[in-house]
Structures are given as structure tokens and as C-alpha cells.
């Protein structure tokens, strides 16, 4: 069913991002949906560590795979050992992420490790269950014939025959897997997830146990999940600043700043500059706007990363060229940028826009190819 209960919207910044939950957050959701997990404790500071003498494991909480290989998962036998392990883990760089929170759980001994997930298949436009007896590794490296796949039609959920086939494929006699599959799909559906993954799903003497969790939620659906905070993992400060303002901004490695309206036009602009030897500094979708203030905001952000040239490429429609021109003029007056600005205006009110710019001494062109040439030339000077 399509859940459409009306909710009071909190201002969630929607910039089409993914929210990757940390292992412990995912496991808390698993517990709620009765997916069996090993007993665990979330460690935020030293004082959270209990005294213990049995064999435990301390795990970095970062939203990236391969933690074990990089020293992020350490077996410990006492509080003292745990403290030492945490100190070590804190120093590890996991693809730009640092572990600020830790998970302490009982050491497990499994007989074998399985893989189980539910994710969106973009091609079929349906969720798909993936299962494999080859757990514990990246599913992309498992050969296709070792993966059980079933596309789920949400209206009939996971049919019984699918659970039977899947259980047989994994060599499981017990019906516990039926419950785990149902729970996983329920999480996918009810949490608006794009991925719910258990890897590995351990077969232990006590039954199935999720040894890790990966849950990804799209931010478009966060208005239904007030409990999930948007997060800024692995982002540069300027990207975080943009997100907080609800701006769609991606930092690239070059020096030519780009503002364009529309994602496709942005990408095409980046491509054209790159093809002619320029190096774009960013992707920045101005979106549809009729407020010059948004243009000023955009220029302020660009001024933090641009050194030589900023290219503003607008194809007017919803966003009118004169509005953009007005914003640019105000921003230049306010910011007095030390980089050059090339503006290209087409579409709605292009003449008025160019006139406003011309009056204020800002360069503008109509033709995209010429504008790109000019930008690349200025950057090379």
C-alpha cells in the first residue's frame, strides 16, 4: 500500500542524496523487525565500555565496506584491550570517514556465511531479493549463477514459493530464513530503503544471525522518517555547506567554477569544458528560481572555490534570464570577486538579461560553444 498519512513536514533538505545508516543503526532496526543479531552495545565514549572477560569484538562504525581488512574490526578480551583497540581504530582513515562511534559485541562462531539483500533494480523498476551462499564478500564479485534473484511486486510482497526456493538455494532446512526474508522486505518497504543488506548472514548453532547491517535510505523519503537525521558522510566542507542550504553542489578537482540551471545542462557544461581542456571545479544546479537572492547565495558559495573563472550557464524557462542577471550584478557589487565571470544566457528574457549585464560591465554570450571557448581560454591565461 502507498502510505499517504499526512505528516507535518520538517524541513528536510532534499538534494537527492542517500543516507547510509551505520551498522549499529541498522542493527537497531533489525531488532525492531526481529532479524536476529548478536547482542551488542553502542560505544560513544570510553565510559560506555563495560567490564568484561569473555571474548568480544569492537567494530568501527563507518559507512564503508572492508572495515575488517583495514583494522576496523578487532577482537578484544577485556575493557583494557577494548580501549586500546578504539584508540587505534580512531586513527584509521576509511575512505575519508573516521569512526566516532563503536560497536561492541560478543564474538561469534559461525558455520557458514550467507548473503541476503533487498534493493531496487532500476532496470526492471522493481525491488529485487538477492541471496547467495557466498556471504562475507562484495556481491558484485559473486558469479551470477551463485546468486538467487527474485523481483518483488510490492502488491504481493514476497510469495511463499519464493521463500521456499530461496531457502533451498541457500541449503537451509529451517524455516527461520522465511522470517528473515519477510523482515528484510518489510524494512525495505516501510523504511523507504534503497538497500537493506545482511552480509554476512551467519549460520550458527543457534540459527541465523546478522553479523553486519547495511541500510540506505533516499533523502526524498526522509519526510516519512523523522527519526533519521540527514548526514554528511565523506563530504567536503563546501559540499556540507551547500547541502545545509538545500543546494545541489558537487565538488570536482578543477579550477573553473560552474553554475547552471538543471542537472543535465550542468553535466553537459562540465563535459564540454573538459573536452576542450578546461578543468571544472564543481557541479552546481541552480534549479528553477525567480529570486535574485538565490543567485547571490550561489555566487557566494562559488567564491570559496573558484580561483580564475566562473561560468554561469542559464537556459531560461522557469528561471528567467533577467532574474539571474539581476542577481549576478548584485552579487558582484557585494562580493567584489577577484575571478572573472562569463555568463551565457538563452531563453526566457535573454535580451533583458544581457542588457542588465552589459550595463554593469559583465561579459555575456548567447552561443554556448563560444561561451565555453571563452571560459577555457580565460582559465588558461
Amino acid at each position: 500500500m502507498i502510505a499517504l498519512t499526512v505528516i507535518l513536514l520538517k524541513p528536510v533538505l532534499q538534494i537527492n542524496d542517500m543516507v547510509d545508516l551505520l551498522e549499529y543503526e541498522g542493527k537497531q532496526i533489525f531488532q525492531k523487525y526481529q532479524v536476529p543479531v548478536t547482542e551488542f552495545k553502542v560505544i560513544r565514549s570510553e565510559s560506555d565500555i563495560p567490564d568484561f572477560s569473555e571474548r568480544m569484538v569492537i567494530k568501527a562504525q563507518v559507512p564503508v565496506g572492508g572495515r575488517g581488512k583495514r583494522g576496523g574490526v578487532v577482537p578484544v578480551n577485556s575493557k583494557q584491550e577494548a580501549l586500546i583497540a578504539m584508540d587505534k581504530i580512531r586513527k584509521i582513515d576509511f575512505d575519508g570517514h573516521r569512526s566516532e562511534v563503536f560497536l561492541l559485541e560478543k564474538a561469534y562462531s559461525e558455520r557458514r556465511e550467507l548473503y541476503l539483500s533487498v534493493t531496487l533494480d532500476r532496470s526492471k523498476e522493481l525491488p529485487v531479493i538477492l541471496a547467495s551462499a557466498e556471504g562475507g564478500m562484495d556481491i558484485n564479485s559473486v558469479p551470477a549463477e551463485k546468486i538467487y534473484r527474485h523481483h518483488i511486486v510490492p502488491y504481493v510482497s514476497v510469495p511463499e514459493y519464493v521463500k521456499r526456493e530461496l531457502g533451498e538455494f541457500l541449503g537451509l532446512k529451517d524455516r527461520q530464513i522465511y522470517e528473515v526474508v519477510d523482515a528484510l522486505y518489510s524494512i525495505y518497504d516501510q523504511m523507504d530503503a534503497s538497500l537493506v543488506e545482511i552480509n554476512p548472514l551467519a549460520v550458527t548453532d543457534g540459527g541465523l544471525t546478522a553479523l553486519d547491517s547495511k541500510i540506505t535510505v533516499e533523502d526524498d523519503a526522509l519526510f516519512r522518517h523523522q527519526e533519521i537525521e540527514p548526514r554528511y558522510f565523506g563530504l567536503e566542507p563546501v559540499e556540507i555547506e551547500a547541502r545545509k542550504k538545500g543546494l545541489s553542489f558537487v565538488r570536482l578537482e578543477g579550477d573553473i567554477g560552474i553554475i547552471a540551471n538543471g542537472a543535465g545542462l550542468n553535466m553537459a557544461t562540465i563535459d564540454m569544458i573538459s573536452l576542450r581542456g578546461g578543468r571544472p571545479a564543481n557541479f552546481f544546479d541552480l534549479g528553477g528560481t525567480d529570486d535574485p537572492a538565490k543567485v547571490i547565495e550561489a555566487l557566494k558559495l562559488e567564491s570559496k572555490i573558484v580561483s580564475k573563472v566562473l561560468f554561469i550557464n542559464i537556459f531560461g524557462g522557469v528561471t528567467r534570464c533577467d532574474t539571474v542577471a539581476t542577481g549576478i550584478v548584485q552579487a558582484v557589487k557585494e562580493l567584489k570577486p577577484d575571478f572573472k565571470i562569463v555568463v551565457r544566457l538563452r531563453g526566457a528574457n535573454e535580451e533583458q538579461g544581457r542588457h542588465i549585464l552589459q550595463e554593469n560591465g559583465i561579459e555575456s554570450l548567447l552561443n554556448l560553444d563560444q561561451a565555453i571557448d571563452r571560459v577555457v581560454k580565460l582559465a588558461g591565461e
Partner: protein
Amino acid sequence: MAIIIDEKNIPVIVQGITGHQGSFHAQQMKLFGTNIVGGVTPGKKGTQSAGVPVFDSVKEAVENTGARASVIFVPAPYAPDAVIEAIDSGIKLIVIITEHIPFHDMVKMKLYAQLKGSRLIGPNGPGMASVGLAKLGIMPNSIFRQGSVGVVSRSGTLTYEIVNTISESGFGETTVIGIGGDQVVGTKMQDAVQLFEKDSETKAIVMVGEIGGTAEEETAEIIKNSVSKPVVGFIAGRYAPPGKRMGHAGAIITGNKGTAESKIRALNEAGIRVASTPTEIPEILKQLIR
């Protein structure tokens, strides 16, 4: 004939017509020549917007105006309900402009539309226009010129840029469809291409893709097997970094999947010429159309 919209006076309503976007674009659509017959905003019955009557429900609007198509400007949390209401009221063509609709809702809506025999276009796209007939969406009226090229695109402003180029070159368009930038879309690129193949007025097809997903690869496969008309491709995002969403929810390279290289390769293997800039598109069209 053009595709999907293939008659001059199809009666169209606008859901969310009293909003800022809804009323502005209802007016623009009328200027294009679209037969906008009414709008829907619950609680606003009896008022007027963009010069047409506003109704409380789609059912009322259909009963009073005979509407057969709808354009949806309703905000994301309420848009799926608006779409279901349109489907239940017998609307067979529904263009969803709204962005940020959770893809979970879209998966379910699309199945429901399929069950009831309605076509969805979008969400998160500029809608569509059949030049000389009607526009359902937000594309600027000025970019079009009646002609022989069918355009399907995942983008908004980039589509305007390209359509403008095609118009200025003298070719002009039959129908332009912006399928939307989301992961799950009502009408897919391959659907549009197959419809263009069958349309007698369309002489050539331009498909504008971007990184993320495999829609372009699948469309290329279909073109290879069952499309006889010349096709020109364009793929945005050749220089996009992996793992980052480039504005659109669907525009992301995950692992090594969804790259521009993969798409361009697939298009080339299907015998499709791929332009590297928008301005190259009419040049290629000139070579292909005789």
C-alpha cells in the same frame, strides 16, 4: 501524427493549479495552444485560476470538462495520491512535474497505472509537447518548431538547449518528451523510442541520456533490433565522478555501473551516432536525414 499526444484538442486539467507553478504553467500551456479545461485544488472549488475553473476533485473536473489528461504540480508528499485520484477518475495520460517523489511510491504508482491502463510521464521532468498540438509540462514555448525529429530526454534545461538547437537548424520536432531524472519513471526512454519508430511523421530520433542506470544501454539494444529510423544520441556526464549524485536522483555512477563510457559504447555498438556537444546534434541529423 506525433506520439502520445496525437490530437489537437485533448482536454487537459492541471492538478495543483492554484499554486505558483501550477497557475503560471497552466497559462503557458494555454499560450502553447493546449486545451486546458480546468484545474483541481481541494477546497478551492468555484474559483478560477489561469482563466479556467477550479474543482475540488478530479472526478468533478472530469465530469464537468471531459478532461482526458492531467499535469501534476502537487508537492511530493501528496503527489502519489493525486496520481491515484487521476487514475481512478479515468485519466489515461498523467504528466508528473513534481520532483522528490520517493521512488518507493513511484514503483507502486506505476504498477497501479499499468493495472488501470493509464500512462505516466515523469516525475521530476519537464513533461512533453507535441508541436502544433499540445504541451503538457513546463518546457519554454519558444524553443519548439514543428518538424520531423522526435526527442526523448532524461533532462530538463539540457532538453531545451538541444530542442532549441534542432529548431534553429530548421529540422523542428514532432514530439519532445522529458521522461524525468528519477530512478523510476512512468514512461521509459525505450518506450518513447519505440513509439517514435511507429510514428509516420517522425523521420529521426534524438535520445538524450545521462549517467546512472542502464536505460540508454537497454534502449540501444532495442534500437539495434527493431528501430529503422536514424537515431542520434547524447550522453551527459562524461566527466562526472563516481559515487556522486549529479543533481538528478537517477544520475549516479555506482561502482563501475552507469558510466557515460558504457552508454556511449552501447549506443555506438547499436550503430547510433553520439554527439559530444548539443550543437553537433543537428550536424549529425543533416548527415542522416536525406
